[in-house]
């Protein structure tokens, strides 16, 4: 009977995966190509997939950061930006760009679009799915390029690499230091919460569910179950049969979600530094609230708007100032695993 239940569950997840794949195919019709340079992608290249809306100020630093890590090509989806970011990207030699005016929410927050593009262009490549405000930090990232990590993962027969979202924030009110285009956002938002994360297991998909950090502390203290999920699996050796289920929080087949060790050991993992909380955030939050394009009836943005009116300081006496990956490793936010 147990055997049968296991089989039944796998089968249902399989159907679910097929469903998301068909949906991605359907949603792909919403995409219009702006600049397709995917012919330049070589075997073994590392690719970044990203969807964005009005992130022009962040794009230059975003591209530079990932180019420096050794990313070879960027596949981007522009969701109706009107700030010139689209033209900027279209002119970049290593960017392929699609655009769509369609609903972000109806494309399951961009997942359908990217699932499709990854299926088309990501097969057999290490694919990194990140937003323009997310910067990947992995063990030894200051001395070893991303390729060293993916080679090691390949050699270890590991197909997916977890990197938890770590919310970074400035000291003082959000709009105190304005962010200028191409700056390093970490020079402003360089503080984080070191140890207030709640973790539980999602038995259906096998992933961990992590909540906490400043967003939970400041915006969701009274309804913590609504706090946004921080677990992410952004780096995957992609196969065209894979699909992301909900943002990059979890994937199917579910074996890819097992980026944690259950027997007391630590697997290697990284951190996505989330630089959402800059002065641009206040404007963005107000805008997103009227667009109503975000997760769970935009609860997140409603909570932000409610608090942002009094211009809060996310910083507290126990906030930690970001130094490097080793610091995050010592604090237990990420791990080297057996990579030495």
């Amino acid at each position, binding site marked *: 009977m147990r055997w049968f239940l296991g089989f039944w569950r796998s089968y249902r997840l399989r159907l679910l995966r097929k469903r998301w794949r068909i949906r991605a195919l359907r949603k792909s019709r919403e995409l219009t190509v702006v600049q397709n340079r995917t012919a330049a992608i070589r075997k073994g290249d590392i690719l970044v997939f990203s969807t964005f809306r009005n992130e022009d100020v962040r794009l230059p630093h975003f591209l530079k950061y990932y180019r420096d890590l050794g990313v070879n090509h960027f596949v981007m989806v522009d969701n109706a930006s009107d700030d010139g970011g689209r033209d900027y990207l279209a002119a970049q030699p290593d960017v392929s760009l699609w655009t769509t005016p369609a609903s972000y929410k109806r494309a399951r927050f961009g997942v359908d679009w990217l699932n499709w593009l990854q299926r088309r262009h990501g097969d057999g490549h290490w694919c990194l799915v990140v937003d323009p405000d997310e910067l990947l930090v992995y063990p*030894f990232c200051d*001395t*070893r*390029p991303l*390729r*060293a990590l993916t*080679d*090691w993962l390949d*050699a*270890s027969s590991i197909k997916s690499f*977890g*990197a*938890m979202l770590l919310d970074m924030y400035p000291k003082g009110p959000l709009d105190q230091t304005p962010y200028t285009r191409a700056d390093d956002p970490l020079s402003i938002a360089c503080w984080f*919460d*070191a*140890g*207030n*994360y*709640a*973790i*539980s*297991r999602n038995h259906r998909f096998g992933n*961990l569910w*992590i909540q906490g950090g*400043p967003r*939970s*502390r400041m915006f969701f*203290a*009274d*309804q*913590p*179950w609504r706090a946004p999920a921080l*677990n992410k699996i952004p780096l995957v050796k992609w196969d065209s049969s894979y699909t992301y289920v909900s943002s990059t929080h979890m994937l199917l087949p579910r074996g890819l979600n097992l*980026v*944690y*060790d*259950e*027997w*007391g*050991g*630590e*697997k*290697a*993992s990284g951190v996505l530094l989330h630089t959402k909380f800059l002065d641009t955030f206040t404007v963005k939050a107000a805008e997103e609230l009227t667009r109503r394009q975000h997760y769970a009836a935009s609860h997140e943005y409603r909570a932000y708007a409610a608090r942002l009116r009094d211009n809060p300081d996310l910083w*507290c*006496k*126990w*906030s*930690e100032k970001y130094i490097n990956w080793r610091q995050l490793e010592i604090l*237990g*936010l*990420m*791990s*080297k*695993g*057996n*990579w*030495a």
Partner: protein
Amino acid sequence: MTVGIIMLVHNALDRAEQVIRHWVAGGCPVVVHVDAPVDRATYQRFRTALDDMPQVRFSARFRCEWGTWGIVAASQAAAETMLAAFPQVRHVYLASGSCMPLRPVKELICYLDARPQTDFIESATTADVPWTVGGLSGERFTLRFPFSWKRQRFLFDRSVEWQRRLGYRRPTPPGIVPHMGSQWWCLTRRTLSAILTDPRRAALDRYFRHVWIPDESYFQTLARLYAQTIESRSLTLSKFDFQGKPHIFYDDHLQLLRRSDCFVARKIWPRADRLYQTFLGDPAGAMKGAEPNPGKIDRLFAKAVERRTRGRPGLYMQSRFPNEGWENGVTSSPYSVFQGFAELFQDFESWLGRATGARVHGHLFAPTGAEFEGRQQTFSGALSSNPALRDYHAQMFLRNLIWNTRGEHQCFQFGPGDSQFISWDLAKDPNAQISVISGAWAIPLFQTNRNFADLRTEAARLQKIESEHLKALRSPYAKARVRIWTLADFIEVPMEALQTVVDEIGTKGLRRLAEAPRMVDLTGFGQFLQSLKNQGMHPYLMGDFPADPAPANAEPPKRKPYLVK
């Protein structure tokens, strides 16, 4: 006399070429074996690139899949070529394309010249080696392995299982004692040619062809038959992790490799430009003299393996989420929980802080929010005092608190008035030192001026909660260090009890307590309990409290506090 290098290559051919040129420049002939799956065009390009080197030969190509016979066959063929083509070779060194000489080739030659009869090959009997991938050591030599471990794991495992079940055993050829060791050896011409020209070679090859991972046992076993002097160690620095896959060296290992004094290291990441530049570039950059001393590297990799297999105790994070029972410590360090002390003593928190130097919190699980030391809104790691956040995942709240304050000893108050989600977790945590004065929750009730009917309900509620908690503490699953006194017992000998508790925290060295905390005035408390009884409630957790104060000079019998472990 010189050293001949056999090099097994399967990818990163440009790097292999670089290393080959380095060996040849140092005066070592090289025989190259290129893995059969490498396509013809690539192979041809590689050969032509090395055309200008008469000291380089190519041997017949085999398919070298991990754990199979191919690697041995390749080494045999290459060794034969080497011995036939280069008569000046006395030692033959087996290396791979990702091996890199760390010391000048001259030094290796001198080192081997000084030990002309010595074979360097790690070789130990199967009973004595810990490195056994897949749990197979002796069985490598007695079972058959028709399936690939890498590609057909399921079939591999089933076939092993069935052979075990059926009691199948292959006979070992007479005179053979299976030995295992690192596949990277350096053998003398004498030993190697004896192995290759053994009249029984055909039979031995047939046997080893079906041994699992023969490259770790073929030469290791046969060398024992012919060698004069065996140094059972590999000259190649090669470290394996817990899955039996070699650790890789990167640019940031440069200093470590320099100080290792090893002759050859493996495996080098092909894109580690700085390593290749340093060790193959200028001979001055390489290191000098001394016996190989890989201790530091050993420690580094041993630590990495431990991190992967054991992890950091008490840490719950995105890539470590142990199942129950596998935590290797639910929390990261010892902490103390006090129940009833803050009720009985007026200034218990500040007194405890002074007496022990530990961090003393109030009721961390109070319904109004966590009472951190100094009643801060947030605490170490930006933990919030918000009760909803805390109770959302009380377990993680406690684990986080203890993890965030590594190096300090945490103390906090607990009681039946607090949220009880954590009750069983405390009881089951070996790091918890729990001291309970049962029934002390009645003291604040006794001191308030509330309606007696309310007090009676409240007392009944608290007593029920505390008795549930005590049940957890006394259950066979409890692993915490638990001390339970009834209130009546405790106030008989308060100092003795406090001393025990403070000694256990042990932060300030063992000293007698100089200062006692101030106990609240309990005059009339017995009467209060009697009133509760008269109202039909039965307060029993505080022990036998006489309704009338006891005569001053009648000493009641002392009871030792008991320890539940």
